[in-house]
């Protein structure tokens, strides 16, 4: 199965698992005013629509890669970041619907884009962004031109022998991916701003639930952003490792070091890919479960199940 095929199967599998986890359990929503339930469902719809748009853009990038071989996989390289960024931008751009005249309450707590961001969420975004940027700069600086003159190869020379391997994340891939990394971070901030700027639940006495949905959506945003950054990191690490492994035969006394570096990058690439898929599935799960997570509790096991257990 080709690389894009593996990615597609993994993504579809993650979606199926996420939906099963989110919908397989029976939820009993606490009695809440209809306008509160409607508001939470609207927020869920917004988040799910953003994730669906991201998935559509990712699929489009994969189709473009398949149909435009001359692009040398560039759309695959920037696809995850563009997909997540597009979804986050759509989420940030969708404004609230107008509310009917009535009685509304507001707390005096100041909300900012960072109000509901935990240290863990911030690190989940910043660490892969930093690693991705550092690796892109390193591979960009160590890359070389291929036969077409594109900076997407790596070359090593030792005495009279030399070896070149491609694809390699040289500037042909690294430059646009650096731009996309910045795009992911900016659109994440935009989405976090939308979470803080969205109006409170339309009923007084639901301040705790209001905070809970904001925390939940910040986690969705964090999962989506980090999934894209980790998918990007996975590609960079994997192809950098693969390239280094290929040229290690002509590296002379540096062969052992290159092989170790290659092995580390390959493992990091595969590990990052797995975590990226898990994070993407978590984003979808959390988005689908939003109203239940804010209001509900799991229903007790039916009597027939309890007797079998």
């Amino acid at each position: 199965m080709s690389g894009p095929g593996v990615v597609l199967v993994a993504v579809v599998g993650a979606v199926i698992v996420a939906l099963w986890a989110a919908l397989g359990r029976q939820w009993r929503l606490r009695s809440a005013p209809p306008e509160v339930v409607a508001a939470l469902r609207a927020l869920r719809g917004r988040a799910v629509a953003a994730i669906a748009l991201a998935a559509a853009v990712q699929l489009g990038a994969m189709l473009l890669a398949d149909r435009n071989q001359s692009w040398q996989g560039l759309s695959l390289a920037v696809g995850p970041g563009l997909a997540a960024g597009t979804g986050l931008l759509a989420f940030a751009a969708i404004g609230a619907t107008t509310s009917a005249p009535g009685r509304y309450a507001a707390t005096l707590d100041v909300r900012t884009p960072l109000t509901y961001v935990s240290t863990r969420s911030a690190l989940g975004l910043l660490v892969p962004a930093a690693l991705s940027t550092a690796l892109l700069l390193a591979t960009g600086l160590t890359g070389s031109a291929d036969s077409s003159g594109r900076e997407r190869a790596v070359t090593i020379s030792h005495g009279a022998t030399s070896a070149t391997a491609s694809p390699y994340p040289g500037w042909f891939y690294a430059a646009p991916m650096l731009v996309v990394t910045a795009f992911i971070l900016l659109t994440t901030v935009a989405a976090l701003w939308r979470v803080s700027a969205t109006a409170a639940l339309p009923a007084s006495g639901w301040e705790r639930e209001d905070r809970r949905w904001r925390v939940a959506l910040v986690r969705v945003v964090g999962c989506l952003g980090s999934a894209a950054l980790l998918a990007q990191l996975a590609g960079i690490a994997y192809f950098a490792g693969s390239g280094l492994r290929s040229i290690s035969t002509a590296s002379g006394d540096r062969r052992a070091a290159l092989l170790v570096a290659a092995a580390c990058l390959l493992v990091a690439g595969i590990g990052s890919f797995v975590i990226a898929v898990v994070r993407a599935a978590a984003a979808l799960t959390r988005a689908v479960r939003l109203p239940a997570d804010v209001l509900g509790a799991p229903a007790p096991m039916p009597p027939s199940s309890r007797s079998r257990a």
Partner: protein
Amino acid sequence: MIIVDSGSPVRPFEQIRGQLADLIRSGSVEGGQRLPSIRQLAADLRVAPGTVAKAYAELEEAGLITTSRAHGTRVRAGQTTASGLLDAALVYATAARSVGVDLTEALAAVRAQWA
């Protein structure tokens, strides 16, 4: 907590201004505390940003809040009503409620005695 009722005869900006002024003078909102931005409060109360802006402007004119680009909108220190007066008001409000009088009638009684 600020509550705006679109069905009330009191205009929304006056509801916001009055409730904020009461919270500041009663000490429920402390001096130096930052208030929500105009956009945030307007979104939560489902009113136009200009309505909140007008309420904030009147509160600033009354010396209860300060507004700056660097620090946002903050409650001015030292605006709390004397605790003795608040205690007396609590006693009066409790007595008024016990005889079934609403806020309008209670305030009318104060005005009558004040004269």
